[in-house]
């Protein structure tokens, strides 16, 4: 075990880890905004608009991220009018180009996740809202959105973890993040296994942190899935007939394991 080499490799990889995290954060947030628009278009009810949104999701989920990235980075730069446009300074930079492709791709996947969340809202809760006289906007704000977001959280966690892995593709358009640096080290030193292990550890730790964060979020928004509140000292207990002091419990064993069955082919 050449610890010096491992330490040196780790040092180099950790130095570029912030770049990976930056790529990830940017593409997730921009992708989220895109996905909200796409979902809105999808459920709009206007045929052309909703078909365009469906087509967007189809294209970005049906083709490999790599080809999307190359198309954006190499493909667009082919055109003179692009190179002369105001957007060129932005598009020219490989980092920006990578972020945009990643965002467009995750936008498609996230839109599908929101759609699933919306479909999972129990119809009877929507009916109760209508029966009580809620307007459509109020219904969306108070009943549909909270429910849909909560239901979408597990799948959303899976998606953002997958995006962490996808940032590795940026290395193929010359962004020197963790994977790119690892590849460079491998081709220089030929010490594949050691470099791989260092890089793998970094990604696994990052994923672990993200998953923990998402589990915390899921726990915080699901008070109704936890144990019953304690009823010690509350009047009417005898009538209720329920046992005392079932203390607000630990997170339930509900199957919201974020990295679950692959719902998100890339």
């Amino acid at each position, binding site marked *: 075990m050449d610890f010096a080499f491992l330490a040196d490799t780790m040092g180099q990889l950790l130095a570029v880890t912030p770049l990976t995290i930056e790529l990830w954060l940017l593409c997730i947030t921009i992708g989220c905004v895109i996905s909200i628009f796409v979902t809105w278009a999808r459920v709009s009810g206007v045929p052309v608009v909703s078909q365009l949104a469906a087509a967007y999701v*189809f*294209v970005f989920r*049906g*083709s*490999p*991220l*790599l*080809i*999307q990235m*190359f*198309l954006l980075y*190499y*493909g*667009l*730069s*082919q*055109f003179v009018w692009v190179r002369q446009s105001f957007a060129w300074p932005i598009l020219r930079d490989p980092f920006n180009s990578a972020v945009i492709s990643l965002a467009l791709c995750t936008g498609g996947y996230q839109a599908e996740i929101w759609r699933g969340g919306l479909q999972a809202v129990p119809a009877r809760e929507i009916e109760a809202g209508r029966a009580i006289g809620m307007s459509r906007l109020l219904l969306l704000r108070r009943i549909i959105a909270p429910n849909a977001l909560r239901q979408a959280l597990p799948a959303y966690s899976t998606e953002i*973890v997958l995006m962490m*892995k*996808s*940032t*590795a*593709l940026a*290395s*193929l358009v010359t962004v020197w993040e963790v*994977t790119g640096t*690892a*590849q460079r080290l*491998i*081709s220089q030193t*030929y010490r*594949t*296994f050691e470099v*791989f292990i260092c*890089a*793998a550890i970094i*990604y*696994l730790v990052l*994923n672990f942190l993200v998953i923990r964060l998402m589990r915390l979020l899921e726990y915080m928004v699901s008070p109704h899935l936890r144990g019953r509140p304690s009823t010690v000292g509350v009047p009417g207990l005898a009538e209720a007939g329920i046992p005392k002091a079932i203390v607000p419990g630990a997170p339930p064993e509900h199957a919201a394991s974020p*990295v*679950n*069955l*692959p*719902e998100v*082919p*890339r």
Partner: protein
Amino acid sequence: MSLLTILGFGQTGWGGLLLAGAMMTLAVTISALIVGAIVGSLVAWAKLSRNLGWRLFGDAYTTVFRGVPELLIIYLIYFGGSLWVSWIGTLLGAQGFIGLPAFGAGAIGVGLISASYQAEVYRGSFLAIVPGEIEAARAIGMSRMQRFRRVIAPQVMRFSLPGLGNVWQLSLKDSALISVTGLAELMRQSEVAAGSTHLYFVFYIAGGVLYLVLTTLSDRVFGVAERRVARSFRGGLGRG
């Protein structure tokens, strides 16, 4: 030179090459899935085992292969594998660097990744089998092997179909990463054509369209298969 000629099948057309790439993509994905099925069943078996050690191994496997970027894994298998082969080669008297065949490396790489997803699918399918059916099989005197062959395996296969459809789509798209090994699959061919003609936009779009065709066709095939399987079970006695 018109678009049609460029994409066509004539002398100057790249159409043939792209289609060949698509065929290669299918071939390497199918191989990967077979590798994944074998390894995945073993991992699933480990995860369902009563032995804590096996379970930990299974969990570690899925954690690593779902948490580490696919690109890194392909680098590991291809470059690492090549180093290993070269080393064995020097032991046997060969000289210099021997590369692992790109197809093999790619299939193994994507295969090991898909194995982690397939393991989850098989595990879920196994757990979905009604315990009563296994009990009935035991009560009737079937041996373990018989129970597995006659009751467990068929059910696992039936339940796994939707999940496997997902894994197939995933692997189909992951196969594009095998292009870094130089294998002449669809992504690589698109790159070659684009680089050669400098018509990047055209060929990446063409490649993308071919991928969409592959994923759409796969979707249809799996849809038909799922319906077929569901029908044959619904027609049976009292299920579903």
